[in-house]
């Protein structure tokens, strides 16, 4: 099991770096080329959400991204340290796209989660008063099967 961990200050300009690193590690781990765009987008969405949460709660701690290469899958965990109260980010509900306007951060947050849940089959969102975690995983290319 190989792990790459990335921590970055909660600033929008670093989200791109997280995307690039995640895509590079995913490629190395054997994630299918066709799926790399999804990995890039999903990790970007998760990091964007974490940056927004840190900024809106005045959290100084960095956003944490853990990339884990396992035998048959590649997983990404994006962790934030923003306090999540009841009803905020505890679960992926049915976010309303009508909310999604740039003037409404909560709408954007909902749309980010909507994009992740639309992209990633295997995902889990957990949160408590000390922070939240989005876990996503993708299968890695199986060894070529003999006939």
């Amino acid at each position: 099991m190989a792990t790459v961990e990335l921590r970055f200050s909660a600033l929008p300009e670093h989200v791109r770096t997280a995307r690039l690193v995640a895509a590079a590690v995913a490629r190395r781990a054997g994630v299918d080329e066709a799926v790399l765009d999804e990995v890039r987008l999903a990790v970007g969405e998760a990091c964007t959400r974490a940056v927004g949460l840190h900024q809106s709660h005045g959290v100084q701690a960095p956003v944490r991204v853990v990339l884990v290469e396992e035998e048959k899958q590649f997983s990404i965990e994006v962790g934030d340290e923003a306090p999540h109260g009841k009803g905020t980010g505890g679960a992926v509900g049915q976010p309303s796209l009508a909310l999604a306007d740039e003037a409404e951060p909560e709408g954007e947050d909902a749309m980010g989660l909507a994009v992740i849940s639309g992209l990633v089959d295997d995902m889990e969102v957990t949160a408590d008063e000390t922070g939240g975690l989005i876990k996503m995983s993708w299968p890695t290319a199986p060894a070529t099967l003999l006939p």
Partner: protein
Amino acid sequence: MDLSLSTETVGDRTIVRVGGEIDVYTAPKLREQLVELVNDGSFHLVVDMEGVDFLDSTGLGVLVGGLKRVRAHEGSLRLVCNQERILKIFRITGLTKVFPIHTSVEEAVSATD
């Protein structure tokens, strides 16, 4: 890769050519551009996304915001996009039903419905 923006007027349409990556860092620039155009009286916008390499939900939010603004003036916001990876994001969020998406700038400029 940063975001590049340029505009061109064709009849009553204003074409906004976008290039690069639209994400949480660059989306505010696109938002400013759209707000400025609407404030200057351009209510029929065609956003050409052919040069866009990456688009996330922040970018979608800006486009939805732009659509709201032009609609307040009975205007329109049309997209030009042929890239599957970008179109996919519009599909999974259901926004293909919200934005008219065209295959060429010419088609978007001449569209009336």
